[in-house]
């Protein structure tokens, strides 16, 4: 007798939970982080899944139906949805179908100088005093083509932008919640993550000062940078905990950027990046929530520092680091995910992918605490047949 979707869901949830907790599951879980690739599997362009939230969410359902062996997936990884971003004229994205070809991925466009930065160097004190006030009254108007800050003449477009932004985000959240339910009832698939964390230094560098700005600031006003990260930290923790899985079954996600070794020295990492990230991670762990450290790029010399965290408090996702080195440095304390190169998925053949998956499962599966995924988020350059080969190989070799 065929399993019901609920039985399948419970089986997959148990498998996913065990691997995340460094126990040995019955099968290595397959947890692909697929963005525009989900649309490609479903037959939608990048423009369609970026502009139409219903199609973006439907693409994930179709992916879970068509790709074998997916245990857990993200409800929607094409997180830039123009129903939200266009509602208030968000400046910093270039999106498929408008500025980009219909099958390109959206792009983040960072301001290139201090004049255009969304937070100026002279704004630090105001930001540190009250990040809420700064975001509402300064940052949002600067990132929007329509919103105007307090003190400037109000406009029709400003009023509309606040109204439409509120409606769009509410609707988007409701659709996300409904699709988590649909993943469970229609495909028996676990929603892989809930709640998002950003390192305070990453938020400051990515969204407020920009990389160039922060690179200067750590030399010209280091104490202000530190105070700013300390001011943001409680907000990062609060938001992550508030939006995490209430049942504490699945981890929150932490997309890691500027602590990678290609951006800054170990000294900068230790002084500016790590203290508040450690504090926030421990606070979240104290609330019973694991964090996926989605370590984009290479973190080699900084890996050892993560050992300061409590056992099992994170799941380390390996992108450009040697996953065997990551296992050696962190494998006794934390589960690990990743391992299938994106260039292999884009340019290789299904046989290459199956061979790699088999090797990863042989090397990491028997110890438990391993979750199969690509090295980086999968976009439309991945061949669908290679993605399917990942799932097939996990089904074939994953029962350990």
């Amino acid at each position: 007798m065929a399993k019901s979707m609920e039985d399948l869901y419970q089986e997959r949830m148990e498998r996913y939970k065990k691997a995340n907790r460094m126990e040995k599951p019955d099968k290595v879980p397959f947890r692909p982080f697929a963005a525009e690739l989900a649309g490609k599997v479903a037959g939608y362009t990048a423009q369609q899944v970026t502009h139409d939230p219903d199609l973006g969410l439907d693409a994930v359902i179709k992916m879970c139906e068509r790709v074998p062996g997916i245990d857990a997936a993200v409800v929607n990884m094409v997180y830039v949805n123009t129903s939200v971003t266009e509602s208030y004229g968000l400046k910093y994205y270039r999106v498929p179908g408008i500025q980009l070809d219909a099958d390109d991925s959206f792009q983040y466009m960072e301001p290139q100088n201090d004049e255009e930065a969304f937070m100026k160097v002279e704004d630090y004190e105001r930001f540190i005093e009250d990040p809420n006030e700064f975001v509402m009254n300064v940052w949002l108007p600067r990132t929007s083509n329509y919103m105007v800050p307090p003190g400037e003449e109000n406009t029709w477009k400003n009023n509309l932008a606040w109204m439409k932004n509120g409606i769009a985000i509410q609707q988007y959240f409701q659709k996300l919640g409904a699709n988590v339910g649909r993943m469970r009832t229609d495909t028996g698939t676990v929603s892989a993550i809930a709640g998002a964390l950003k390192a305070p230094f990453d938020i400051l560098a990515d969204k407020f000062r920009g990389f160039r700005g922060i690179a200067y600031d750590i030399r010209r006003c280091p104490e202000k940078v530190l105070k700013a990260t300390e001011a943001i930290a409680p907000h990062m923790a609060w938001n992550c905990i508030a939006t995490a899985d209430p049942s504490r079954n699945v981890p929150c996600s932490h997309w890691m950027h500027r602590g990678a070794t290609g951006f800054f020295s170990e000294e900068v990492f230790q002084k500016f990046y790590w203290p508040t990230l450690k504090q926030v991670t421990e606070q979240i762990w104290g609330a019973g929530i694991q964090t996926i450290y989605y370590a984009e790029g290479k973190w080699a010399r900084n890996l050892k520092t993560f050992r300061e965290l409590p056992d099992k408090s994170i799941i380390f996702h390996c992108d450009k680091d040697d996953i065997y080195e990551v296992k050696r440095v962190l494998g006794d304390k934390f589960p690990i995910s990743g391992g299938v190169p994106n260039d292999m998925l884009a340019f290789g053949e299904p046989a290459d992918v199956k061979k790699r998956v088999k090797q990863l499962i042989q090397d990491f599966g028997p110890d438990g605490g391993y979750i199969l995924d690509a090295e980086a988020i999968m976009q439309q350059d991945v061949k669908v047949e290679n993605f399917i080969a990942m799932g097939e190989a996990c089904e074939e070799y994953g029962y350990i």
Partner: protein
Amino acid sequence: MAEKTSVPGVCFPWEEKKKEYEEIKGDEEIVKTWWEQYDVHAYVHLWFCVIGL
């Protein structure tokens, strides 16, 4: 209008809102609960724009 909060989860604190009323004739807790419920939504919305977009 409260413009300085810096508290996670709060945009416009109830203590500030309460000052707008000369008195609350009924159950203050009901008024406070619903004020805070929508205020926390505003806070999450605000930071979603920073963290999630």
